[in-house]
């Protein structure tokens, strides 16, 4: 495998350079999706080898056969976010001596057969992952949301039921009418003022997991490195907050896919670090994830303030986000725990943020950013005794 790994060196460095330059072309995003598809396949095969001789043998075999006869369909299904979550959950259970949930795979396989035009045995009420629930009349599909603006389209599933998309937090109302309307408004913002980011979101974001609402200026949002394409989100208060959350979370998904190709940090580095957006000390890899997402958020607010120079919120967010992203990236850069590709990414992002730090913002926005940074730092130190910053 060493020879094989050497073959990918140039590609991994190139990808890190392109992340820095925001050069996320459709070819690169297609490649990352392909990586995620094959990562899922690999994890499914790892599960299969540990459960040979069970009732699930036929389901594993059926999936492999369907892929031979309809590779395009299976490429669509095997990259579903719940597939990675399910496989990792099985491997975790097997490691801990527990029974894996093989019934889920049997349902998934039946759903794939159904999509391929076959007639699998499915009783009324059977849940089919990624597709819906089987009823007397046939499949009742999971709701789909669609948005279109400035020639760019977005299509996602609104999945509030899949058990392997439950790890993001308490799930909330899945009213497709409400989410459709709000997604349309956010998509308009993205396509009008963040067209390049919108293209990336369109290529990556496939599944919206609704979270319980909260009465705050910013929605709760989350992604998982095992669930490529899924974004969990509580109802956003306005289209701009919705748009910002999509940018934020899609950048996590993109870096998660890159992490599956190449280690960006030393996996043996057990140290914990201050991240100005978290209350707990974070591992270096998680700090880097937050840096990358905050870099994208900073770019979002930079574009917003250029589009709406009179809006105080955009100025304040830009001032704050560039400051905390620069601070955390500086910490990561000096950690001594980055690999070569990790250094390319971190130092490249630092270079870009360094230029943005020179862009003037109103004094009130700078003051507010400093207050927030100081307040967070003080709270963090008081809740994490023994740590220094």
């Amino acid at each position: 495998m060493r020879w094989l790994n050497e073959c990918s060196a140039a590609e991994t460095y190139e990808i890190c350079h392109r992340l820095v330059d925001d050069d996320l072309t459709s070819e690169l995003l297609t490649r990352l999706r392909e990586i995620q598809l094959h990562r899922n396949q690999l994890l499914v095969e790892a599960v299969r080898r540990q459960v040979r001789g069970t009732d699930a043998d036929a389901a594993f075999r059926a999936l492999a056969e369907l892929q031979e006869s309809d590779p395009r369909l299976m490429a669509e299904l095997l990259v579903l976010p719940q597939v990675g979550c399910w496989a990792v959950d099985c491997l975790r259970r097997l490691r801990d001596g527990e029974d894996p949930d093989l019934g889920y795979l049997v349902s998934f396989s039946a759903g794939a057969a159904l999509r391929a035009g076959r007639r699998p045995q499915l009783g009324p009420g059977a849940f089919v992952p990624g597709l819906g629930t089987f009823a007397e009349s046939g499949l009742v599909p999971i709701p789909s949301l669609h948005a279109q603006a400035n020639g760019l389209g977005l299509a996602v599933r609104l999945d509030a039921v899949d058990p392997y998309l439950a790890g993001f937090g308490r799930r909330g109302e899945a009213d497709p009418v409400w989410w459709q309307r709000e997604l349309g408004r956010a998509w308009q913002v993205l396509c009008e003022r963040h067209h390049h980011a919108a293209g990336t979101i369109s290529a990556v974001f496939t599944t919206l997991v609704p979270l319980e609402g909260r009465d705050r200026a910013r929605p709760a949002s989350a992604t998982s490195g095992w669930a490529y394409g899924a974004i969990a989100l509580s109802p956003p208060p306005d289209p701009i907050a919705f748009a910002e959350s999509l940018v934020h979370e899609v950048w996590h998904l993109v870096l998660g896919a890159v992490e599956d190709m190449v280690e960006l940090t030393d996996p043996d580095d057990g140290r914990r670090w201050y991240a100005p957006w978290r209350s707990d000390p974070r591992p270096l890899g998680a700090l880097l994830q937050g840096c990358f997402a905050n870099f994208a958020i900073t770019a979002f607010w930079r574009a917003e303030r250029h589009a709406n120079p009179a809006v105080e919120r955009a100025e304040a967010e830009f001032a704050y986000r560039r400051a905390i992203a620069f601070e955390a990236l500086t910490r990561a850069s000096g950690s001594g725990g980055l690999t070569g590709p990790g250094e390319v990414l971190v130092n490249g992002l630092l270079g870009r943020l360094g230029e943005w730090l020179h862009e003037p913002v109103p004094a009130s926005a700078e003051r507010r950013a400093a207050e927030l940074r100081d307040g967070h730092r003080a709270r963090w130190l008081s809740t994490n005794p023994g740590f220094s910053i």
Partner: protein
Amino acid sequence: MGEPAHAVGTGLAELTDMTLLQLTELDDATLDGLVSKILGRRGPWDRLWQEDANNGAVPCDG
């Protein structure tokens, strides 16, 4: 400068032309090595990216 990339690639990038059927032919050592690099040294790790509740957010009203 950290390690060169050939030492840090997970090996996944080179397997993207394999189907589920072909993966069944992969030897155990190669598969285990790939999977352990993807899952992390200490087994499946938590890869949940989640900002603390409103932590760091600038209030809309200023």
